[in-house]
């Protein structure tokens, strides 16, 4: 690999990292897992003048759950940490379903969830998961911290809402108000492939009714798609075959896929629809099993 020439910095604190970014004036890039940035540099699509490697900043690799169920994912928490987490298995089925289908085991050992959100690849799986969950990105810059909803964090393909001197410190999944349920299904051509289409569904139920729902779509638009109408259609009612089919149709309508070597637009819509049905049917089954 022969990238263009760059300076390499390895700050030991968040403050130091922010100062370096500030000094870089927009020509500096954070290196987290490097699983997206390094391939871009190899292709010379990215040619940063400065690399700010945050891997030596202590205390960023956490994955914690508060007493109320709020989940915190630190900027250096790797895909593989999420995949192996018993916390997620117990508390967050959508994330637990997504973690093992991101890339391949080697990439998962390095890549981070926060880095994936920052990279804002329309084919990135975590963005749609976080959208479905109503997640939040916490950013820190020279002027302190702010919270950005995951739904707003992605500005467009490969563009996020961070200022050039801001770091995404963590991602947060808010505490559920009902029983969390859902899943993630991804169609890939082989392990390690990006999604032909991916569907994240997160619902919360209480007394047999859906009280919150989110549906995020991967790989079927210029950026990650928040299928709000589809999700909204589920709220306030129990899940039935009819409501599931209706939501699936709305999700398929929300998709804006393009025909390419992964498949035609109409095919990708069909996959979205099928996956919404499959995930929600699974939810019904698991609710019935629990009852």
């Amino acid at each position: 690999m022969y990238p263009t020439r760059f300076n390499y910095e390895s700050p030991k604190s968040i403050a130091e990292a922010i100062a370096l970014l500030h000094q870089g004036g927009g020509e500096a890039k954070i290196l987290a897992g490097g699983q997206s940035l390094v391939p871009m540099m190899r292709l010379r699509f990215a040619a940063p003048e400065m690399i700010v490697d945050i891997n030596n900043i202590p205390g960023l690799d956490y994955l914690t759950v508060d007493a109320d169920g709020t989940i915190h994912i630190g900027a250096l928490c790797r895909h593989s940490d999420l995949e192996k987490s018993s916390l997620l298995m117990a508390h967050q089925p959508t994330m637990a379903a997504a973690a093992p289908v991101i890339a391949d085991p080697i990439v998962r050992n390095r890549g981070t969830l926060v880095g994936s959100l920052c990279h804002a690849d329309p084919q990135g799986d975590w963005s749609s998961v976080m959208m479905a969950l109503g997640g939040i990105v916490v950013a820190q810059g020279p002027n302190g911290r702010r919270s950005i909803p995951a739904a707003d964090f992605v500005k467009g393909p490969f563009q996020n809402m961070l200022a050039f001197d801001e770091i995404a410190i963590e991602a947060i999944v808010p505490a559920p108000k009902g029983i969390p349920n859902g899943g993630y299904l991804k169609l890939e051509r082989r392990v390690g492939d990006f999604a032909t289409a991916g569907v994240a569904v997160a619902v919360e139920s209480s007394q047999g009714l859906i009280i919150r729902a989110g549906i995020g779509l991967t790989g079927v638009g210029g950026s990650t798609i928040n299928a709000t109408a589809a999700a909204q259609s589920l709220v306030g009612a129990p899940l039935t075959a009819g409501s599931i089919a209706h939501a699936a149709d709305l999700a398929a309508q929300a998709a804006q896929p393009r025909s390419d070597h992964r498949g035609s637009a109409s095919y990708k819509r069909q996959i979205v629809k099928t996956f919404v049905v499959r995930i929600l049917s699974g939810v019904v089954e698991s609710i019935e099993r629990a009852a």
Partner: protein
Amino acid sequence: MSLDEIKIGGMGASRRRVEDNRFIRGKGNYVDDIVLPGMLHMEILRSPLAHARIKSIDTSKAWAIPGVRLVMTGEMMASRNLAWMPTLSYDTQAVLATDKVRFQGQEVACVIADDAYIAKDACEAIVVDYEPLPVVVNPIQAMAPGAPLIRDDKENQHDNVVFDWEVGDKDGTEKAFAQADVVSKLELHYPRSHPSPLETCGSIADFDRATSKLTVYMTTQAPHIIRAAVAMVAELPEHMIRIVSPDLGGGFGNKVPVYPGYVASILASILLERPVKWIEDKTGNLISTGFGRDVYLRGEMALRKDGKILGVRMHTDSDHGAFFSDAQPSKFKIGLMHSAFACYDIPAAHLTARGLYTNKAPGGVAYRCSFRVTEAMFFQERMVQAAADDLGMDQAEFRRLNFVRDEDFPHRTAFGFLTDSGQYAKCLDVGLEAIGYKDFLKQKEEAKKRGRLLGIGISTMTEPLGAGNSREYDILGIKMFDSAELRVHMSGKAILRTGAKSQGQGHETTWAQIVAHELGIPADDITVEEGDTDTAPFGMGTYASRSTPVAGAAVAMVSRKIRAKARKLAAHLLEVSEEDVEWELGRFYVRSSPDRGVTIQDCANAAYSNMPDGLEPGLENTAYYDPPNLTWPFACYIATVEVDPETGVWDVLNVVAVDDCGVRINPMIVEGQIMGGLTEAYAMASMQFITFDAEGNCVGSNYMDYLLPTAWETPGFELHEVVTPCPHHPIGAKGIGECATVGGPAAFVNAVMDALKGTGVRNIDMPLLPDRVYEAFTTRRDISGMPPVKTED
């Protein structure tokens, strides 16, 4: 007492691969590991466009970068008569483009600099002014009236046709069709794929002005051919050229052709009088070097109601890219395509083949197969399934009915090949038994009632291996024999060199086993060396599964020469006449008193220390082997699948492979070859292709787009064997390196098509990506020969 052959690592021993010792420790010695004093680095600037006239090239900014030693362009090559080079298929290929570029990724300029980073930066600083020309990306466009002429550099070339060729019996075939009860038709595209060895191509050229000797370390499967080609292109005397092919990180046919990068690095070293290293990056490898396949095939089969095949007609339109550099050594323009249907007893067949230039990378190399055999066998087995379906016959029974029978060998195929041995029906039976054919058919019917789609696919084939024999096969006029040289040292240890070149096949392990079998020298006592033209005997290299059939035969023959001399030494040591000496593995003894004997090691010692009067000292010899015929292994691959009707995703349930590759030298290596081949077959069937958009941009220029299968999705394989020794090979071996890649794909595709049986869908072109399967299933239409990249909706 005779030695235990398995214990000494002889034939049949699943001896661990000796080369793995260094490979798994990271101690292999690949071209990129070699560092020479004063070595410079070369990078290639490639064309971003598929077809464009070069108006100007400005290299001044590149020259200005510190550390840049040389910038080469086509113009400069032309001034040395090196802008074009001959290909191994009697065409010409641009080394660096002069007039125009003809495919995306074509070599336009080279920079030689102190390190690879500088060279890469300098390549980006070169400004090329292109005038885009209309682009041709498939044979249909290439043949269209008024199509842009790609090879306007060639005199007398007025269209994009590379060749028009035919073989077989046209009239006889016509008669067969006139008598047919049923005519079955099929049309399909075997997509372009890339051999994609993990190690890309590369070279280090080291021209020494003081000795006038040129040494080139190079990723080549055929060092001696390269030496001949370099002598021709660079006009250097052959004895002043040394080609060294060190450890190779895979080849699969990709490392047979001569590439512009090799030639450019050689010229650069001559000009700069310093070693010049060129290591291609992955993208360069995928977009510019020897791809495989890319053939549109159509054909029909004349059938009698009772299932007998009366005749076959085939036509192929093959896409050769911008330069015809298939690197295939047969006299047949479309390689061994007409080996199709060789395992079936068919009275008449006729094949027409047209090759076409397009604005795509050159090649059509034999990616893990004999030349075009993969396409041939794929078409054959897809056609056979379609015919069985049309007749309403069971696909296994239809095959059995038409197989060449065991007692009919030698058999002349309809296209004129001579097959010599096999037990086709037995292999099929072993396969059907192993997969549980009858039970599966029942299971399939049951599943269908519940809306589930199960399918079973069979692929049976015999393929020609081991190019060649000198009558029909040559490269640049050099006949396709091979060689082995064996030197037995005084201690009875030995070194063996051959004209082949391992790229992962395990020659260092298996060649020693053949010597052990012939001489009783333990395999561990034998070093095997290949790839250095200064030390190895002249040979044609490794591809087309030719190593065991040809070089392996030479190893046996040279061992026998050594044994013949050792017998003289034994007679001398035992003080009897040669006629009274008997041989058993590793030992000569006196016929009348078997206790009196000497070992092969005793003989070796005597060859240097105690030879009889009149006998030349030493125990060394060389053998050249010109095979009397090709070898014909047989294989039966069976796969079962389940197709998801809502997504088009198909899962492999079981795969059974029955291979008859004749006598197995090292069963473990044979099994490894079959598993690797089946993995590639599964990849081709399910995910792998390199495609191009309408502008000729390559989609598949990296491993995110060009999919290599991993252990995660590759199914498990159950292997079985049948052994029919090759009647003309000294140790009865037939070769196994490529059978599964060749025969495997049809088993998977046939299985999916079987699952869709009754929907009216006859064909889906590979790769059977879920979207294609879904589309075919829902629209009830074939997906054949369509442009791979969809542009509608």
